[in-house]
């Protein structure tokens, strides 16, 4: 058996390679970030299930696989390979293959006024007001928690490229920015560490779609970190779409810093991937900030979809809403871990958390865990979780009206998933995920329609639901 040190060898190789390549280009502060990240990762290694934050997700398969960093351009992906993944009407589309920006495949010309989008590496190499107030240096690596999260540490040490998006003060960008992260195998298991920095300045309005896809069936490991800074009164929607192949590992983290009255929505739609960990970590740092954390995860086969929410209320009068729906078939496993921390000064906090799950087979499993830490005395926090099956009563009602059993099941699944769609604003991004969800559920209804008998009356477990009003 390989020792922990041997397992990390590939990562050390990648780190040394990267430092050598980037030595002449990167400023000292960035080098320092990488070194700190590496020190942290190499000291801690991958977490185990003894770690409370990873109790339900076993990473040994990930830790065991010797993932390798690709060289730039090692794997070629053609426009045709990714034609199906493009987002028509996007304000701009950046395409990354195995973590490297590919300008030929991207469409970043003619940007709307007030919108700046470019590859992060290019932004730093060209010195695009990197050091200016509000520039990259001031934000990059300032929010992701390298101390606490080894994946953030690993990404900080090893990121090759990613996106830099800035929406200028007061700009309202109607169409979404599409960041397409493509994993394409090369006969061995590859890893990428995409890094995204989004700065939504004061009173701006915009949407970014981060979209993870695979070309081919080889296993890959994507470890993405996105730092989002939402200025005063900014309105921002973030979409995470995970539709990689079932052999993939994907760990992605959205870390949001919200100023006064900033309003951020995070929509996560997990449809693909083999082992997926979706971290969403907003800190509501300005009075009156609001966040909506909305998600849907759909698993089949042996997919493992883990959602870890950490919402920190750090200022008074903030409002957070978490809604996650899960649909799990076959042996799929889901996790919803919703943690809310209300800091001492965050009076009048209003936080709500709901996780609803449909299990389509006896072998599917969901672990749902609310966790509240409240240090203020005048707050309102509620949480609830349900686990159920498709109800025989509902199915019979639809069939009595003439709908075939498979169609009736599909309609009920769609209705359950649609709760998440209803929380998204109308527009290009929502249409994209709507069509992806529809296609995914159709597959699921077809592959499970014959396998599952009408479920017994649903067992609904209402988790403890409490309110604390001081």
């Amino acid at each position, binding site marked *: 058996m390989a020792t922990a040190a041997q397992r990390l060898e590939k990562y050390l190789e990648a780190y040394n390679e990267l430092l050598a390549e980037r030595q002449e280009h990167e400023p000292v502060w960035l080098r320092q970030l990488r070194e700190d990240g590496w020190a942290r990762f190499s000291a801690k290694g991958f977490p185990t299930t003894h770690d409370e934050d990873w109790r339900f997700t076993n990473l040994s398969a990930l830790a065991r696989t010797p993932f390798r960093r690709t060289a730039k351009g090692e794997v070629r992906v053609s426009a045709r390979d990714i034609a199906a993944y493009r987002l028509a009407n996007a304000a701009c589309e950046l395409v990354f293959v195995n973590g490297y920006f590919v300008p030929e495949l991207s469409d970043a010309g003619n940007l709307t006024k007030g919108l700046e989008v470019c590859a992060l590496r290019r932004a730093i190499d060209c010195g695009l007001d990197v050091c200016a107030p509000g520039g990259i240096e001031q934000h990059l690596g300032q929010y992701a928690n390298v101390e606490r999260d080894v994946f953030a540490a690993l990404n900080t040490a090893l990121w090759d490229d990613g996106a830099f998006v800035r929406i200028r003060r007061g700009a309202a960008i109607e169409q979404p920015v599409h960041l397409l992260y493509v994993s394409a195998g090369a006969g061995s298991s590859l890893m990428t560490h995409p890094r995204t920095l989004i700065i939504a300045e004061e009173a701006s309005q915009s949407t970014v779609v981060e979209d993870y896809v695979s070309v081919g069936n080889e296993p890959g490991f994507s470890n993405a970190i996105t730092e989002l800074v939402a200025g005063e009164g900014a309105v921002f929607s973030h979409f995470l779409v995970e539709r990689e192949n079932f052999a993939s590992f994907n760990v992605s983290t959205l870390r949001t810093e919200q100023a006064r009255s900033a309003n951020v929505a995070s929509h996560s739609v997990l449809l693909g991937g083999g082992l997926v960990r979706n971290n969403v970590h907003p800190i509501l740092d300005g009075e009156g900030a609001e966040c909506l954390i909305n998600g849907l995860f759909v698993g089949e086969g042996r997919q493992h979809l883990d959602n870890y929410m950490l919402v920190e209320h750090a200022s008074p009068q903030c409002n957070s809403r978490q809604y996650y729906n899960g649909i799990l078939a076959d042996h799929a496993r889901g996790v919803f871990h919703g943690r809310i921390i209300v800091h001492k000064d965050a009076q009048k906090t209003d936080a709500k958390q709901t996780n609803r799950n449909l299990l389509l087979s006896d072998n599917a499993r969901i672990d749902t865990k609310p966790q509240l830490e409240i240090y203020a005395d005048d707050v309102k926090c509620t949480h609830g979780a349900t686990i159920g099956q498709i*109800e*025989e*009563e*509902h199915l*019979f*009602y*639809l*069939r*009595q*009206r*003439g*709908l*075939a*059993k498979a*169609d*009736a099941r599909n*309609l*009920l699944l*769609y*209705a*359950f998933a*649609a*709760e998440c769609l209803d929380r998204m604003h109308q527009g290009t991004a929502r249409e994209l995920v709507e069509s992806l969800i529809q296609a995914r559920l159709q597959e699921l209804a077809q592959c499970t329609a014959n396998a599952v008998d*009408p479920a017994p009356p649903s067992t609904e477990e209402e988790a403890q639901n409490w309110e604390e009003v001081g």
Partner: protein
Amino acid sequence: MALLEIQDLHASVAGHKILKGVNLAVNAGEVHSIMGPNGSGKSTLAAVLARRETYEVTQGRVLFDGKDLLDMDPEEAACEGLFLAFQYPVEIPGISNAYFLRSAMNAIRKYHGHEELDAMDFLPLYKERMKLLEMDDKLMNRSVNEGFSGGEKKRNEILQMAMLEPKLAILDETDSGLDIDALRIVAHGVNAMRSPDRAFLVITHYQRLLNYITPDFVHVLVDGKIARSGGPELALELEAKGYGWAEENEQVLPA
């Protein structure tokens, strides 16, 4: 031939025998009322005819329009023209009334090899029928029965019936829990649907509904069997004398 022909029907649910030999023939154009005390098997009969899988038929046969009904799935029976207005209509969050009903109509049309209706064909018809049931057309975009009052749910059942135009409509205690205004509206909807091609099986505990929907025949179901049959006057007699009378004076029905 009768539209519905029930012969010696026995059925049980979870091992309990509920129906113990029901015989009944319903012709197109007729309205039959099935009355009976609680627990006599009225709703079981409705569920068996609608082919609910949790009910097990142990004996007998049922012909619907000449075909073996007991051989059909629920959706097949529905497509053949059998409609059940539920005693407790379910709420289905996330599916709008309009979308649900159009899907149902199109499933039935597809079964018969007809073209599907698009929203433009569907909506005017839907709105017109909503008026018949005195329903606010804002309800059409709301989720199926979600947040509806008891009366609204029952009206919604009759509205669906009016849209799907079945050959046989089974109303399972549609009157229970309705106030007199809602009862009148529901009855009006049913009466507007009466036609020589269509039959109704009106299941009720009380005679009240039959003041508004005049049946051609009344049957009294007692302990899983039809104990008495007669004309509308039987319902009045039952109302006056109670179900005990029917139980004690079981008719010998012609085979």
